[in-house]
């Protein structure tokens, strides 16, 4: 099945893909596996948003999900 992915430019430094793209995934594929595949360290990820809602790392994707991965902005 296919999902839409958008990775914030902040994660460019880790060498994986950033920007907007589509991905073909197997059933049972979750956020944690996506982060591994994209080479994004989990401890740098702030929000994972799926279809305009924040989800946890164990969220399992469904066909057509739109995923957005971005860091926290928590400085003052």
């Amino acid at each position: 099945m296919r999902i839409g992915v958008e990775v914030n430019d902040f994660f460019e430094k880790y060498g994986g893909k950033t920007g907007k793209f589509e991905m073909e995934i197997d059933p049972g594929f979750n956020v944690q596996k996506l982060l591994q595949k994209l080479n994004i360290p989990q401890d740098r990820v702030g929000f994972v948003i799926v279809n305009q809602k924040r989800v946890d790392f164990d969220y399992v994707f469904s066909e057509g999900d739109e995923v957005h991965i971005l860091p926290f902005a928590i400085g003052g």
Partner: protein
Amino acid sequence: MEKRYIKNIGTLTCEGQNRLFQTTVAVVGAGGIGGFVIEGLARLGVKKIIAVDMDVFDEMNLNRQALSNVNNLGNHKVIEAEKRVKEINPGVRFLPIRQKACLENLPDFLGEADYIFDATDNIEIRKELSEFVQNTGKVLIHGGCAGWYVQVAVITKYTSSIEKLFGGTSAQGAEKQLGNPVFAPMLTAALELSEFCKLISGKGEPLVGKCMVVNLLTNEYRVFEF
């Protein structure tokens, strides 16, 4: 209506402006975001500002903290904030608190405030502010920034807690690598202040239980639920 408030009217109604005159607010943190928030609140014309921050100004603050200047380095931020507020709008009462905010002292420090502005820089105190407003029925306007990125949300007793927003992770914020040039706290403060005015005047769609993230590099903003 005093002449100084005329340019607020149109966006705010006279009723909304009058509500501002009767509203006590607290700003936790008087640094990057807090300095601009305090300046904005003085110009909006709230009844009273309670500002909590134990720090003094340092040279590293000059790049972004509106209340810092080369002559007040080493001075307490909240005392400098008080001077600035009195210069801008002597009609606004100001209570400076030179202490570190924590869950135990929040009822004493912030008990009088209706709205609390998050101008802090760490997740722990934000969780405590969230717990406090959810126990007391006050409103927390959360904001944070990192380089090109800004996030803003509103927490009340009817929304999820900020812990839900942060998802129980201890992820480092992007500011550790990107720093914070002046436009980041400036924009965060502007968004916190406009949320406040929306809530006060009952206009638009405040970010209650929602978070808005802004990416200045791609000119995009998004709103999501948590």
